[in-house]
């Protein structure tokens, strides 16, 4: 398991690419668990009959917030959660069953926030094949434990 020690002081320079990570495929079980754990019971994510007959889609789609949670986990495996000052995401594509998210991050800016040295990190998740599902930004405090 990665931990904060893997991101050394030298990482915090504009343009540094953070270690990328490809996550296990999104399964129907994962969507069901996420519906239960998150409290988001929108049938579009868990009920194939609803997806096909009501929403007129081929299959269920993944929760956007599951994508955000997975990228969040990627981020907090690089820096401790306590270091994360803000985290935002734009949803671009819908995740599907079987998608394996490739998460990447890049340091885009160093800044100071409330007297604390911080880095702005650009985040992206693509599905296999390269289509972008989400892009976002996090501000993380440097040296927080």
């Amino acid at each position, binding site marked *: 398991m990665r931990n904060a020690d893997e991101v050394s002081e030298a990482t915090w320079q504009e343009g540094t690419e953070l270690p990328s990570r490809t996550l296990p495929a999104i399964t129907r079980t994962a969507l069901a668990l996420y519906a239960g754990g998150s*409290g988001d019971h929108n049938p579009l994510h868990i009920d194939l009959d609803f997806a096909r007959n009501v929403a007129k889609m081929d299959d269920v789609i993944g929760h956007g917030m599951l994508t955000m949670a997975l990228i969040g986990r990627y981020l*907090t495996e690089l820096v401790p959660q306590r270091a994360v000052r*803000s*985290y935002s995401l734009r*949803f671009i594509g819908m995740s599907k069953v079987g998608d394996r998210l490739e998460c990447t991050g890049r340091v885009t800016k160093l800044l100071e926030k409330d007297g604390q040295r911080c880095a702005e990190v650009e985040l992206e998740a693509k599905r296999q094949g390269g289509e972008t599902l989400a892009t976002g930004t996090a501000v993380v405090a440097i040296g927080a434990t």
Partner: protein
Amino acid sequence: MNAKEYVGRQLSSFTFDVERSQLRLFAKAIGETRNLYLDVDAAKAAGYRDLPAPPTFPFTIGMNPDDQFDMLKAIDVELARVLHGEQSFEYFIPICAGDRVLVKREIVDAYEKRGGALSFFVIGLTYEDARSAQPFCSARQVVVARNPVAKNA
């Protein structure tokens, strides 16, 4: 009704009790296996008051437990027509199991695109400690509604 007319509307406030069992299920659902998120002693050893809520858990807290899609009623759109466009969080104090969170929600912005075919609603949420009134975090979510007919095209 033009999306703009919804700006400034307050949605109902409510409290949400953060429970260990739900945090553990949430952790499982997002593939989170680190002890810090599952084991109370490990969380305390890491300096948390109890199991910490992962960074996106406030979205869950922000859904009204009595009526999880009441936000959509407030903007007069059905579930099948909405997409989640954007989401952001700003963090002040970690939310942990045992916390009672007071959630306040307001429609802070709204606009239309493509001649009214799409309506965008920006919901601002604040999360504070219901006991001490200290702010935990804040969030903004952009909900996109696909309108069946372009009203103003």
